[in-house]
């Protein structure tokens, strides 16, 4: 299939980006192959695994299900944009200290999804955290430590000022 390209511009991890992409390309392919941001992972390409989770205008979505052209004019945050000036974000630190990453392939997606939960509502129960990550598959951890990490990050965020996504 041949397909035309379209020039789009958007904000990516705080910086302006302008690229031309084939109009049928998905956002995951654009991020990884075109913009060389490989932190966002391909796990299935059909919305089932969450490895490609990114934030678009602060809302978590599967990059593999999103047309790249639809990024135009929006604000994207990927795992590469989560770190703060002082280093790892609260969520990232919690993933490290709680042992929430093993092979780590699911980790960027889970951190993005965890960050979106944290930005949305600081007071959620463990059951809500479980539902909150129902779209993220992890084959290694059995999710327990991931849930711990998100709960830990929520806890420390309650006592600290709100973190930028």
């Amino acid at each position: 299939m041949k397909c035309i390209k379209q020039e789009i511009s958007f904000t990516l991890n705080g910086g302006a980006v302008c690229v031309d992409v084939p109009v049928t390309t998905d956002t995951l392919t654009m991020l990884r192959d075109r913009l060389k941001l490989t932190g966002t992972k391909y796990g299935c390409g059909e919305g089932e695994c969450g490895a490609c989770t990114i934030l678009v205008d602060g809302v978590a979505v599967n990059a593999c299900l999103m047309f790249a052209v639809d990024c135009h004019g929006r604000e994207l945050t990927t795992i590469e944009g989560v770190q703060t000036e002082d280093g790892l974000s609260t969520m990232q630190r919690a993933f490290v200290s709680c042992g929430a990453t093993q092979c780590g392939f699911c980790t960027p997606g889970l951190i993005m999804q965890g960050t979106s939960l944290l930005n949305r509502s600081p007071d959620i129960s463990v059951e809500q955290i479980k539902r909150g990550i129902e779209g993220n598959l992890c084959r290694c951890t059995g999710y327990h430590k991931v849930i711990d990490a998100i709960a830990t990050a929520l806890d420390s965020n309650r006592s600290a000022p709100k973190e930028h996504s």
Partner: protein
Amino acid sequence: MANVERYEAPESLPELTQILAEGPATMFAGGTDVVPQMRVGARPVRPTLININRLADLRGISESNGVVRIGGLTSVADILDCAFLKQVASVVVQAADCFASGQVRNAATLGGNICNASPAGDMIIPLLVLDAEVELASWRNACVARRRMPLCDFFTGPGKTCIEDAEVLAAVQFPVPKPHTVGRFRKFGTRPALDIAVVSVGLAGVKENGCFKDARVAFGAVAPTPIRGRNTEAALVHVELDGDRISDIAQVAEQEVSPISDVRASAWYRTHLIRELMERMLHEVHQTRD
């Protein structure tokens, strides 16, 4: 295979409908169906690709003159979070809660779910039992023309609807449910949400003094399209519910579906589940006070 020669991202309905009038186009909203379908070549590609996500007018939930209106571009997440819907038509919210995952709900739109016309489409079932209508818009005589049709007449087969090439689903609307309306949605699966329905059941009706004054029932994933359960409805209204009656009604439900077997379940199991879910749902509404 056709090539994509043009891309448009209109911002208003007149703009969109005019582009649609110009020739065959593929529209996408959230893209959660279109992107994977295109990738595996399951969808014929048309020369124009239209991003309809930028039509702010088509997004949102409102009520006026006793009619609830949900814009075609409203996301499933917005439906799930809508306090108003929770209050007046919780059956729609129940379905949204069983839908996909957080990430998919953020992107997936109501219009996309309806127009994708999967027999298992979860948002369709509650809207069927609320007697919803779809509003289709197109460009005619130099202005946007709208037509309405009942949702239950909209589907013609798996992935097939009555929508015309030049039309867009602008909104869904349904009368504000009357007082004492109970609504329930159940989808069978082993996960709370991220599962394609093996079967689903919806029910809404006015229940007074332990008895349904009117009722609408719908089933998902048991026929080529989502369907209304007319026989079940007839068996349900004006009867005093008790254990035996519930069992009879569930049997009517079981008899009026004729599902297929596939990798997800056999026809036998699907039929059994319809009965089981119907029975449980009726027991539950029977036990809750009017």
